[in-house]
């Protein structure tokens, strides 16, 4: 047993020095930090691509770039934001917060945790390197529909496929680690129904990840075989079907969009009670609503494909099952609003982002309901209305959720309060910028402007210019976010242990900044 004690003592030293600390670390806080920085770098990279897209779309006609490059930009923007920015940011938050919130000493499998992270820089180096290859980067949209991504794809599609394989492996290992941590490492007394909602939503997200990332691996493998080894999964000439691609892809893709929003639901469910100074309304129903959303996410995939030529029974089934999702989502929005009802509200930055989340995510949900109606989707399909819809659920949904989480927990991570004035400025500029960028897209979409086209008819010019101005504003504002975070890390008012006024949760029982090792002895939860 002496070996155990030696190792245990060793663990109480602080972090190692130098660069190798980050390469070799097994500490959940270090790995969480790396995930968050990586995600931010990807956010700026994917954002730069969005700026190029909006610059080209500032005026009708072709100005800055070739259509071929425009296609590469829309494709890479989507892939990088989904797999490089949003997903790793949530994994980073899970790494930092899940052990702190359940009273665990670290993640269940620390070395695997390090591997999950370090695969990502390699995977994205592989993906981004295609931009500099002769054949050009993938240009078939982030949904990579066959045969665009098979018969007509640039040769770099091979690297895209293998990049997806290893980032999928990273996600699966990360998700297994999070599930094992949550199911096995909770402090004594913390039953499942006492877990903070962020932990609950991550448990369900991890389940979704393990269920659908292998399906994504399967579909890219079929592409690889079709391109290089003569199979005919997606070629009707051999008896296959290009529509098969869409079915398999969206069987992955729809749960994937919930993977990008459920952790944000959890974050908002932590923040709103703190700044309403009330307990969360309807905790149990929140858990059941999240589980229902996850369950339904497997039964709705073909609502992305209403115009592809499905039997009528299919159209109807997927239309009604999609609308059903509005029920548990409505339960959640009701609970957030009811938590605020008659609370003593204050509007620090995390709360501002959370309120904007509730309102604007709901707006994105409503346009989703419109898209769910199969007969009218024939009009909306592949227009800017779709682009407006999913940017409303992803930007003020997922990304505002991440901003809220960072402002809420940053004082706990680095021991300083952020600059409230600058942070509020960051919120308002982001809020105005993103609405300017995406709201007009509803109008041009309903009027028939197609997505993923570098040119457009003259009558769309005004709304597109407003969109571009809003996008530049939102993009530029994120440098302010970077400045605020660096400023907070380097100094600022000392944060107290509780940081906020009587917040709930174990993470507020450790000092700020949280020591390198926390909960080596588990706390007792009553």
């Amino acid at each position: 047993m002496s070996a155990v004690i030696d190792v245990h003592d060793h663990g109480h030293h602080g972090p190692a020095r130098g660069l190798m600390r980050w390469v070799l670390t097994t500490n959940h806080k270090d790995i969480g930090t790396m995930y968050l920085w990586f995600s931010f770098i990807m956010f700026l990279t994917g954002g730069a691509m969005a700026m190029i897209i909006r610059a080209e779309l500032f005026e009708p006609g072709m100005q800055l770039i070739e259509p071929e490059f425009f296609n590469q930009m829309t494709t890479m923007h989507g892939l990088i934001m989904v797999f490089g920015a949003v997903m790793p940011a949530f994994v980073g938050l899970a790494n930092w917060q899940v052990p702190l919130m359940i009273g665990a000493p670290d993640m269940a499998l620390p070395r695997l945790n390090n591997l999950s992270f370090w695969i990502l820089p390699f995977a994205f180096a592989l993906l981004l390197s295609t931009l500099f290859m002769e054949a050009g980067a993938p240009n078939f949209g982030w949904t990579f529909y066959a045969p665009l991504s098979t018969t007509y794809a640039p040769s770099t599609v091979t690297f895209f496929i293998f990049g997806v394989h290893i980032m999928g492996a990273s996600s699966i290992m990360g998700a297994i680690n999070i599930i094992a941590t949550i199911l096995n490492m909770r402090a004594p007394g913390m039953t499942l129904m006492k877990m903070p909602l962020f932990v609950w939503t991550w448990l369900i997200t991890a389940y979704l990840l393990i269920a659908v990332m292998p399906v994504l691996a399967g579909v890219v493998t079929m592409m690889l075989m079709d391109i290089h080894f003569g199979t005919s999964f997606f070629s009707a000439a051999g008896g296959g079907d290009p529509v098969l691609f869409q079915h398999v892809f969206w069987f992955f893709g729809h749960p994937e969009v919930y993977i990008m929003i459920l952790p944000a639901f959890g974050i908002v469910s932590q923040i709103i009670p703190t700044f309403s100074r009330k307990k969360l309304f309807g905790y149990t129903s929140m858990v059941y609503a999240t589980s229902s959303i996850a369950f339904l996410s497997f039964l709705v995939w073909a609502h992305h494909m209403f115009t592809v030529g499905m039997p009528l029974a299919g159209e109807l089934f997927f239309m009604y099952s999609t609308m059903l999702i509005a029920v548990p989502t409505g339960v959640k929005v009701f609970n957030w609003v009811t938590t605020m009802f008659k609370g003593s509200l204050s509007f620090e930055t995390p709360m501002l982002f959370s309120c904007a989340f509730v309102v604007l995510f709901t707006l994105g949900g409503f346009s989703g309901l419109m898209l769910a109606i199969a007969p009218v989707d024939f009009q909306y399909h592949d227009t800017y209305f779709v682009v407006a819809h999913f940017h409303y659920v992803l930007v003020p949904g997922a990304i505002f959720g991440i901003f809220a989480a960072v402002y809420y927990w940053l004082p706990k991570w680095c021991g300083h309060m952020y600059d409230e004035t600058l942070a509020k400025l960051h919120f308002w500029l982001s809020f105005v910028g993103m609405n300017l960028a995406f709201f007009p897209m509803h109008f041009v979409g309903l009027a028939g402007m197609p997505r993923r086209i570098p040119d457009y008819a003259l009558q769309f010019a005004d709304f597109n210019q407003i969109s571009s101005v809003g996008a530049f504003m939102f993009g530029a504002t994120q440098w302010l976010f970077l400045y605020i975070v660096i400023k907070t890390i380097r100094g600022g008012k000392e944060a107290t242990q509780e940081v906020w006024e009587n917040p709930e949760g174990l993470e507020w029982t450790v000092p700020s900044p949280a020591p390198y090792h926390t909960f080596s002895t588990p706390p007792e939860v009553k």
Partner: protein
Amino acid sequence: MSTERSHEEYYVPAQSWLPIFMATALFLTVFGAGSWINDMTAQVGTGTSRAIFIAGALLLAGTMYAWFSKVIRENHAGMYSPQLNRSFVWGMGWFIFSEVMFFAAFFGALYYVRNLAVPWLGGEGEKGISNLLWPNFEATWPLMNTPDSEQFPGPKEIIDPMHLPLLNTILLLSSSVTVHFAHTALKKENRQKLKMWLGLTILLGIAFLFFQVEEYIEAYQQLGLTLEAGIYGSTFFMLTGFHGMHVTLGAIILTVIWLRVMKGHFTPEKHFAFEAAAWYWHFVDVVWVGLYVFVYWM
């Protein structure tokens, strides 16, 4: 041991070189494989890309060897609490679930082409209008004549389910039974029987792989059943091929376990590595039953 004490002793390893080696190896492997495949399709020299792939694969194998050795050493040094063992149990269980979903994608594709896409192409059903593409095409399953027989010449014949596949079914199902006997022997501390039953399981697995290779040779040389033979060949080889790769991996895992048994590892109470390997083997077996029914037989 009370819950509280097992919590106190949860082993959080110090810094480790293993993950970064593994990530580098994975990168080299996929970058090499991607370049190699692209070079082959472009019909240019494959020397460099193949070298990168082989270097990556060797580094991957070496790192995995080092990683598992380290875990075994730490385990024998008594660093792992029962709670940490439960993390391994959860980890393996969810890993197998992810594998199930990987096969589900291919089974789903098979279901879709057999019951929807091919009949529609043949003019049957609600989307039978697809028949306009190739008006002479007739839908059958197995699909012997593809819509465009020049690009994708269909198979002349398919594998008879009552010969090699039936034999392979018997081999693999028996191997699931023998691995269970090995487990029982381990729990009863009967090492001789453990070695015998586990060894027999591995031999059955190798015999399965041998006949699978025989079947592939027959398919390619005599039946005209190839990857290029339209959607039947595509689904046939992808499903059986990925299954075969999993049997290979399972046999390697069981061999490692067998070597550890020979070195005297595992006790009747503590042998999760053995159980994990057995779970994996049973999983591979269950997938085979699905394959036998839906790919070969029905």
